[in-house]
């Protein structure tokens, strides 16, 4: 092709447009019609009259078929480490997230009140757990739920590390890695967490936790409506909101009569007390906080954008280099 000033300018213009286009702020792709949930802490009392909260009980019963069924002979240490994660003998635990318990109710004393705070996956809008899974088997659906495919998960637990609330929990001795575990020490099990009962949602049913709540402290609906309802309730009671901004936005909105800073402080203070009482050197679980985490991916958006436009920059540079040659 003969290079003329006109073709050079046209090519340079096209390349520059390609470069500039992605620099626009990324469009939020969370549909207003996707699902969101509301958890109203002014209503939740932790089912104090029951042996365990109804949401926890119904989740455990309703999702029992999805819980891990590890083969004991595959439960081995994660070579070269001398440890593994096996919850199969601690299925009864309901006071924290485990592969067998996808929701728990945290009871806290905050500003003279007893608060019951149901905790589970927040189903983030820009979930690092999904976007950084090296095998892409952690999914964010356009409908809202974040779910892990247990058939393909290796159990590397990166999703837990990058989750600000450390939600996914690992069970050893189950999953695809058991196929090669005996000769190749890669993988550690499968990660488990709440999937917002996505199959029930697809059928038009509510998640188990929402349906079972006797106080109607949990609601599910279209994102726009749930956000509006949460704001309405917070405005009416002088309450506080959590989940709209945290980690770049989530699909789980809490309404609380007390500030979330105070709740987080109470969570940390309790963790400190537990630590003080625990034997020295004992590894304790990370407290599931109610802080204001910044989205890990959002911190590096400029770098991501630069890598997206890099091919166009390369093409532009080649165009310039070869055009100069022609002009000479």
């Amino acid at each position, binding site marked *: 092709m003969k290079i003329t000033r006109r073709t050079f300018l046209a090519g340079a213009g096209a390349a520059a447009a390609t470069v500039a286009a992605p620099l626009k*702020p990324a469009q939020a792709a969370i549909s207003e019609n996707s699902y969101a949930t509301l958890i109203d802490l002014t209503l939740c009392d932790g089912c104090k009259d029951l042996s365990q909260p109804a949401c926890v009980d119904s989740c455990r019963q309703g999702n029992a078929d999805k819980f891990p069924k590890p083969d004991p002979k595959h439960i081995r240490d994660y070579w070269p480490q001398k440890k593994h994660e096996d919850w199969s003998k601690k299925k009864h635990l309901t006071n924290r997230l485990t592969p067998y318990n996808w929701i728990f109710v945290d009871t806290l004393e905050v500003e003279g009140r007893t608060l019951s705070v149901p905790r589970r996956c927040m189903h983030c809008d820009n979930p690092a757990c999904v976007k950084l899974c*090296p095998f892409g088997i952690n999914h964010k659906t356009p409908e809202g739920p974040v779910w892990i495919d247990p058939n393909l998960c290796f159990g590397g637990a990166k999703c837990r590390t990058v989750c600000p609330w450390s939600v996914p929990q690992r069970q050893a001795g189950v999953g695809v890695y058991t196929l090669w575990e005996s000769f190749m020490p890669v993988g550690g099990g499968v990660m488990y967490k709440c999937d917002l009962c996505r199959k029930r949602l697809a059928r038009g049913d509510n998640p188990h936790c929402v349906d079972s709540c006797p106080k109607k402290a949990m609601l599910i609906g279209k994102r726009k409506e749930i956000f509006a309802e949460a704001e309405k309730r917070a405005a009416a009671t002088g309450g506080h909101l959590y989940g709209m901004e945290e980690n770049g936005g989530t699909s789980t909105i809490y309404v609380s009569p007390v500030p979330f800073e105070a709740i987080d402080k109470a969570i940390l203070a309790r963790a400190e007390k537990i630590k003080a009482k625990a034997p020295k050197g004992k590894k304790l679980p990370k407290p599931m906080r109610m802080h204001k985490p910044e989205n890990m*991916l959002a911190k590096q958006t400029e770098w991501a954008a630069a*890598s997206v436009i890099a091919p*166009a920059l*390369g*093409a532009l540079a*080649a165009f310039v280099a070869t055009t100069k040659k022609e002009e000479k």
Partner: protein
Amino acid sequence: MSSLTVVRHSLTVRLTHWTIALSGILLLFSGFGQMPMYKRYNVVKIPGLGWSDQYDITLMLHYFGAIFFCAAVIFHIVYHIRRKEYAIMPKTGDIGVSITGFKAMFGMAEEPLHAKFQAKQRVIYAIIGAVCLILVGTGVIKSYKNLGDIILQPMFLEAMTMLHTAFGMLFMALFIAHVAALTLKDHRPLVPSMFTGNIDRKYAEEHLPEWKID
């Protein structure tokens, strides 16, 4: 009197090559760092690498490497297409000649006569090039979805991610094979050209007789 060396690679070609090679090394290291490996396999215990299990650091390094890698790969393609330089593109019959060439590497056959590039170099170039293009394509998609609340179809993203990871492994294998091939005695005279641009004229005349040297 003719020079004792001949120019095999221009400065542009060498700069492109080394940009791809060095960014490729960074991408491999940071890419493996994006898998939960370095803590488990005690890489973090190697002095100076205590940070290597920090996903935010390895992710930024991966973006940094990707900027140079993607730009250099596309630069290379566009640059040579526009200059109509196709000497390294595979030709008909290259696979058969390559097999003989591979046998020759291990003393099992006579090295065939070549032009500027050996037949097996052209075949390997096409393979590495295709792998690089797949890595660039899938990598750009993976970076794009990190720009904000961008939700790609889950199965599409899964396929792109798996492809990227699998081809990253393949790239590492090809990278190692490429470097290993340069250690073979017959190939060593080609190595200086990646630094200086020149190779020995006598070697070129004997081993690359079909190359029309300017």
